[in-house]
């Protein structure tokens, strides 16, 4: 039971890390290697709100989410659109955006170093035991999982229940065909890229309540997000959620039953298995 709950809590954390990248990669086709830095920026904002303003760290969402949305919109519009326009095919776009966002991630790290300094950012918020079926769990992790569930739920409903959501799904499946049925593909791509950035930054706020961050830590989250998005299937919200939960459960089970040192091995083994048997990801569509 402990394994199940701990695993689900960890899985929810992972889904917060990966959901934004899924939108950016799946729909806008931008393999954003600067995704982790956006998360760290959100975490810093929460840290600043909590320590300097002594307010609830979640209040940071009030300016972080719109801010990240606008910032990512601008990034897409002015830095990435030229690449999209220039690219002759998807492969070329991927190579170009990987290089561009890789460079961007260094720039972001540099900016955050200037703005926040290089030290560790950590604070205690809701670090109290919260009993579930008699055993204690960190309240901050439980709250994070609930927020993750809400964010994922809203995204799912929005993508599967609204007209814009349908357009986004159409772009995820085939940008060229989506353009033929009068969907404004550049606009939808920009929207999902911006939304992905906003979700990632929101994830950063939540994670900062229990993870210790510094300006250079973003790449760790990018890597985790990458694994989850590819495991779950590019451009599918359900896939990302399921893959996150599987990864969380597997890592916790291995850490408890086998050895905590084996968690990374278990995660990559799962990743390799998925790539071997379902290269398109758990929920991905086979490339036609």
């Amino acid at each position, binding site marked *: 039971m402990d394994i199940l709950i701990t695993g689900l809590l960890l899985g929810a954390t992972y889904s917060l890390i990966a959901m934004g990248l899924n939108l950016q990669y799946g729909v806008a086709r931008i393999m954003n290697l600067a995704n982790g830095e956006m998360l760290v920026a959100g975490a810093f904002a929460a840290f600043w709100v909590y320590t300097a303003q002594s307010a609830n760290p979640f209040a940071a969402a009030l300016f972080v989410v719109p801010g990240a949305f606008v910032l990512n919109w601008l990034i897409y519009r002015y830095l990435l659109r030229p690449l999209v326009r220039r690219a002759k095919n998807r492969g070329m776009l991927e190579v170009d955006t990987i290089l561009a966002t890789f460079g961007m991630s260094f720039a972001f790290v540099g900016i955050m*170093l200037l703005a926040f300094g290089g030290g*560790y950012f*950590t604070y205690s918020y809701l670090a109290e035991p919260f009993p579930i079926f008699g055993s204690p769990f960190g309240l901050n992790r439980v709250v994070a999982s609930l927020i993750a569930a809400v964010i994922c739920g809203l995204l799912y409903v929005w993508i599967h229940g609204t007209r814009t959501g349908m357009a986004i799904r159409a772009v995820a499946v085939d940008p060229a065909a989506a353009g033929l049925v009068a969907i404004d593909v550049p606009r939808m791509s920009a929207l999902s890229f911006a939304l992905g950035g906003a979700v990632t930054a929101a994830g950063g706020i939540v994670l900062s309540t229990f993870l210790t961050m510094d300006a250079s830590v973003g790449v760790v989250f990018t890597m985790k997000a990458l694994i989850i998005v590819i495991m779950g299937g590019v451009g599918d919200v359900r896939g990302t959620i399921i893959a996150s939960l599987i990864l969380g459960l597997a890592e916790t089970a291995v850490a*408890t039953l086998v050895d905590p040192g084996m*968690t*990374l091995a278990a995660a990559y083994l799962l990743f390799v298995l998925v790539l071997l048997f379902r290269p398109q990801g758990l929920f991905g569509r086979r490339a036609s």
Partner: protein
Amino acid sequence: MRRRTALRLAAAAAVSSAFSIGTALGADPIRIGAVAPKTGPLAAGAAITHWPNVQLWAHQVNERGGLRMKDGSRRKVEIIEYDDRTNPGETIKAVERLATQDKVDFILAPYSTGLNVAAAPVYAKHGYPQITATSITDKIPELTKRYSSIFFALGSTTALAGSVADILSKLRAEKKIGNRVAMVNVADAFGIELAEVARPVLKKAGFEIVYDRSYPLGTQDLSPIVKGAKAANPDAFVAWSYPPDTFALTEQAKIENLDVKAFYTAVATAFPAYGGKFGKSVNGHLGAGGVNPDTPEMKAYFAAHQKVTGKPADFWASAVTYATLQVLEQSIEAVGTDRKAVTEHIKKGTFQTVMGPWRFSNQSIDKFWTVGQWQDGVFYGVASTGLSGAKPVITKTGW
């Protein structure tokens, strides 16, 4: 095109004016290179322990008019900084560059055990003294034998692990704790080496290791570890941990209410942020390092550190880092900028530092703090290899 030319001209003008300002000051400054992480996994640790001390030292030396050279002249110091991105290859390149391109007079030691060991051959090749303040290893005898320019000041792995066993033995002799120890370590060079040294030491001291696990660096959820340790019902908890996991393990132990009388986490326990984050519940926590903050030298050092850099010094390697800079300072003042003479002087001289008088024997300081403990908001040294001023150890009482 025209704009580009204008930019180039402006840049050239800026560079030349910078040079002319430098020469206008008269006596040439002593140029000192500094290589350490500003980005990458160890950047945060370096931002707490390493860089502020470089800043503080240069500020203080220049404020008093520079180093007082043998011939009576004063020479300021100029620091040339490089970011090695926590990558040993980059550290080596930067040291090489400082020695051959920038032709600096001295190069400060890099940050952390790994980066120092990686760069040691380059320092030796170019004949630059390398006074390390943040490397802990049992290989000190071999390394000092191989490289005549390397110095160690923070201690050895065995001493660090041995002191923990000593403290636990003492608490057991006083009937404050029992025999059961839960030990975890981060699966990285530092954690693995310490765990391997500690295992036989603890067993020899008669302790039973009831939980012994490692976890990968960067693990995002350590609750299975703490749950496992708790289930083993230990009297003492020892973690050979790195900063992010030191914070995470402590928070998780608090959530799980891990009820031990001795709680030890390694690196970062001495950071002011650790006490700041957990407040009163860290009272009695043991950790790597410690200082004696009550000496007049240390009091002045802590105050200056806060004033000049705007942040507090940590309670371990910060002061040691500053002390190594003082060693370099006093050697240059004694024998000038001849690197060979400085190296020889460091080997033989006695130095007045914030850590007290220092004398290297076989290129290493053999009196150093090994274990510290949070007591009423300050991280005091409670065990050392022959230093005075250690506080008596207390037991942890609840969270």
